[in-house]
């Protein structure tokens, strides 16, 4: 049987949306798929050397539960919904939400983005960064982890064109 192929386009650069591409890529690799991820636009943040740029923003995201990752059970169960207008004017709200999200992630035995990304690399998942957006956003290749390839849309289609699964994340 030919090896199956998974092609992923990663377009989002926040802590929460870093998970889908890396979880699916690492799992597919464990299932013996050949995997490529094409990082473009904000997705480029996922392959930065410094992942502390990844934050989560509850602003304008009504689907995001805002619960505390500590304290007694009744306290953890409270959903701290806050109007957008208030979130927007509190300095550091995004950083606070990010700290709480990271705590929740580790409480639940979920891997860090850094670890998942490393596991993808260990499993030979190929990372391609969109050269056009690298330039558009004023990045330099030195901003990104080693082992990246830099190419454009045509290179993506070369792999995605005969992939078994193709995802846009």
């Amino acid at each position, binding site marked *: 049987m030919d090896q199956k192929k998974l092609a992923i386009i990663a377009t989002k650069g926040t802590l929460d949306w870093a998970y889908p591409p890396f979880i699916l890529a690492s799992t597919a690799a*464990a*299932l*013996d798929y050949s995997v490529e991820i094409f990082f473009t636009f904000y997705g480029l943040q996922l392959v930065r050397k410094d992942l502390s740029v990844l934050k989560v923003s509850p602003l304008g995201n009504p689907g995001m539960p805002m619960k505390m990752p500590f304290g007694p059970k009744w306290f953890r169960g409270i959903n701290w919904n806050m109007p957008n207008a208030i979130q927007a004017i509190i300095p550091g709200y995004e950083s606070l939400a990010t700290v709480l999200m990271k705590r929740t992630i580790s409480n639940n*035995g979920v891997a860090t983005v850094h670890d998942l990304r490393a596991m993808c690399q260990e499993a030979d998942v190929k990372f391609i960064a969109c050269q056009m957006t690298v330039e558009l956003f004023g990045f330099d290749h030195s901003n990104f982890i080693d082992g990246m390839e830099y190419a454009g849309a045509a290179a993506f289609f070369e792999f995605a064109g005969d992939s078994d699964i193709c995802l846009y994340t």
Partner: protein
Amino acid sequence: MNFDKELDARGLNCPLPILRCKKSLGELGAGQVLKIVATDPGAIKDFEAFAKQTGNELLSSAQAGGEFTFFMKKK
């Protein structure tokens, strides 16, 4: 059941139990058995799916006291 290696995946969440399992199987020879203990309730379906897709044989899967125990035979 006899096994050649044990993987403690308790407290780990998706996709870590599967990724660790894959890694541990890589350290075994064909026909050897890996025992996996996990607490992720999604693991039951995931290990079945992993076995089906990779050709490794899931010899048994059992649940007791919030823990799931699997025996996986390497292809």
